[in-house]
């Protein structure tokens, strides 16, 4: 299972802040998970449309080619604006 988190504008666009997802076969990277989620269509297209989308795997910033493993926590969010 993957734990997936959404934050800020993306969370609002998707109408949810988290979900659990069984890691399907052939989904070895962050990019593949991203494509899988965006392909849900409707509000989920926000994942593809968010400018400079950021991704963290296990609370570390990660690139689209980062590998995924069962039990990982994956977060999608817009560029940060704290401080």
């Amino acid at each position: 299972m993957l734990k997936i988190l959404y934050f800020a504008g993306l969370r609002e666009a998707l109408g949810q802040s988290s979900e659990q997802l069984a890691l399907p076969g052939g989904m070895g990277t962050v990019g593949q998970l991203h494509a899988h989620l965006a392909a849900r269509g409707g509000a989920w297209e926000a994942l593809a449309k968010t400018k400079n989308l950021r991704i963290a795997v296990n609370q570390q910033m990660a690139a689209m080619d980062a590998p995924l493993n069962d039990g990982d926590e994956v977060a999608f969010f817009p560029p940060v604006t704290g401080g």
Partner: protein
Amino acid sequence: MKVSVQTEDFDLDVECAALTHGRKDIGALASFVGLVRDANDGAGIARMTLEHYPGMTEKSLAEIVEQARGRWDVLDATVIHRVGELKPGDNIVLVVVASAHRGDAFAACEFIMDFLKTRAPFWKKEETPEGGRWVDARESDDVAAEKWKGR
């Protein structure tokens, strides 16, 4: 080193005193306080909400402080970032760096702020007369963080 993400306000004097208490090797305390302004990008701000990524936020801040310690002579440092609902004039963020010398204290303090702005998972949503809006990341913040690569 202290890193805190909290809803409560902070007190600059208390944090500085905690860093200097009982030691006499600190010659320089550089600090920064960020506050909520009542206007941003041409709109009036009634209040704002700060969201963050619990767990990652604290790790991210601690890593930024560690990077600063690796680059400059830092004796101790404190970073506090507030979350939740804030209004104009409220404190948002505090960074204090203690060092023997001022050059290190200033550089480390500004470095921490520049990286916090671009790396730490916080997001601001402002309430304006036209409704709520998520603040856009600023290119100038990326430029500010990039400048440290050459130093």
